[in-house]
């Protein structure tokens, strides 16, 4: 698949079939999450919806945004630090709102 001129490296692209497969997986994920919403799983509904969404997001990031194949380790560092700092905000503010009922 790599292009003809030598100095343009294409570690950033994969074959068309991969893209279509990922696309179908995303559609399946959407269908799954909508279906699962109508099933009463007590308090598992929300975590399940979030898990499905996270899987879909990771698929988009790895294959469509080429995080998977890219030789560039800085991309992975930036993605992971962004997620880390977002979780920091969510978890530490929950440290306040979650523990208000304890006192």
């Amino acid at each position, binding site marked *: 698949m790599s292009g003809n001129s030598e100095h343009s490296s294409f570690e950033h692209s994969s074959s068309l079939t991969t893209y279509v497969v990922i696309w179908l997986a995303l559609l399946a994920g959407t269908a799954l999450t909508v279906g699962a919403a109508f099933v009463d799983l007590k308090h598992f509904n929300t975590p399940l919806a979030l898990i499905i969404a996270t899987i879909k997001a990771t698929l988009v990031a790895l294959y469509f945004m080429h995080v998977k194949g890219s030789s560039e380790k800085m991309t992975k560092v930036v993605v992971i630090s962004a997620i880390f700092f977002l979780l920091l905000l969510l978890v*530490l503010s929950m440290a306040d709102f979650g523990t208000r009922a304890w006192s």
Partner: protein
Amino acid sequence: MATAVAQPVERENYLNKHYGALSWLFTTDHKRIALLYLGSITFFFFIGGFFALLIRLELLTPIGDLVQADTYNKLFTMHGMVMVFFFLIPSIPAVLGNFLVPLMIGAKDLAFPRVNLLSWYLYVIGGVIMLHCMLTGGVDTGWTFYTPFSTAYTNTKIVEAGIAIFIVGFSSILTGLNFVVTIHRMRAPGMTWSRLPLFIWAHYATSIVQLLGTPVVAITILLVAAERLFHLGIFDPKLGGDPLLFQHLFWFYSHPAVYIMILPSMGVVSEIISCYTRKRIFGYKFVAMSSIGIAVLGFLVWAHHMFVAGVSVYAALVFSLLSYAVGVPSAVKVFNWTATMYKGSLHYDAPMLYAFGFLGLFTIGGLTGLFLACLGIDPHVTDTYFVVAHFHYIMVGGAVMGYLGGMHFWWPKISGRLYPEGWAKLAALIVFIGFNLTFFPQFILGYVGMPRRYYQYPGEFQVLNVLSTAGATVLGVGYLLPMLYFLWSMRYGKPAPDNPWNAAGLEWKTPSPPTTFNFDEEPVVTWEAYNYEELGDFPEQEASGA
């Protein structure tokens, strides 16, 4: 004192390569953009300083007799907003950082020069909107604009000020983005991470905070504006909204923002101390890693601003513990700088005086931070003048001292002229004395119980307030002097040699002022950082006594 002005041989440099307003307004040369920033932030610095003087004058007397209560509230709000968003956050990164980051790593320019110019234009647009907001009514909520006061109980121009801060915040994000990509991608061959000057490490850490913190205050401001304009009552207690959510989102950015202000100064002080002691910084790795440590840990501690705001007791425990953890890297830096002096060959020019001032005042500021992080003392001293004194010791004692030290240290490189050494030392002394006279009494005021943002106060606090006002005037004079003699030196100062202090660092290997593309051929770095053993002693300045 101005000896016969030797006309510098006219050599092409970034200042005289192009002439005319267009060449400045559409420049993508990082050095010119640094000077554009220098002009605009100095302008805002003196506006903020003017407000500070008015506040101090008002507080001379217990009763409010200089201005109305509303005007006073607008004064301290505008002082806070202008100083924080329009001076302290951009000052060192946008002026010294823009000028020196490419020079220090051996690059021709920043990674995205046009984005750099866009960052300055955003700053100017934000500044114009803020000026318009101030001239046509101003804001009276304090720079923290807590809800529900800012969303429902005042009709001053919150949305306009919010837009101005949003735009200036975006300019800060772009500067941070530019620096991170430049430091990663455009280092000269041989300039490995362990050979980077500590100034670059400090700016790398600052950029991390700018990139990851500023967007959160941006969304917070938008939500306040949305609540005022479109009734999106996310913080509205009547809808079940929680004013503490605003404080969480606001302080999530605003605490790391204080590290945006102090980290660049730490970088400047590392450079100055190593040059004027002719020594390698003690424990380079520790000092570099502590900058990154401060940047990352800075995001974990924000709720120590809210111990009495009604957060749960357990949250207060968590954040107090984490706040003490963030104190350790700062302590390491101070100890390492002090250890650098050991067995050095110290020389006392103005930059070194500012570095000493920084060390002294930042240590006091840092230690009082430990009082505020302590759960036992914080309920008593938060929202009083103790806290005002604490953050002024860090911001004015630390960041501004570092900024002035840096301006003096690199002025020969920026302008190609030497500043008058005698006047500079005098100004440094006046700033140091004026600062301490202004803010040390406020520690006592705070512990005795004078609350913050008070237009009138009980009589027993007056003596300390008079002392503080006296100090403020001295400080005001101290800050005027550098601007005067810097401008004077542009015209009459002695032409500066390429390396007036015989300092280490790639930026001193370019002519001063440097050519538009910094290096004629790409430099190759073969020496370790701060190789003062090869550079030898301080140059014998014939005019060092001037």
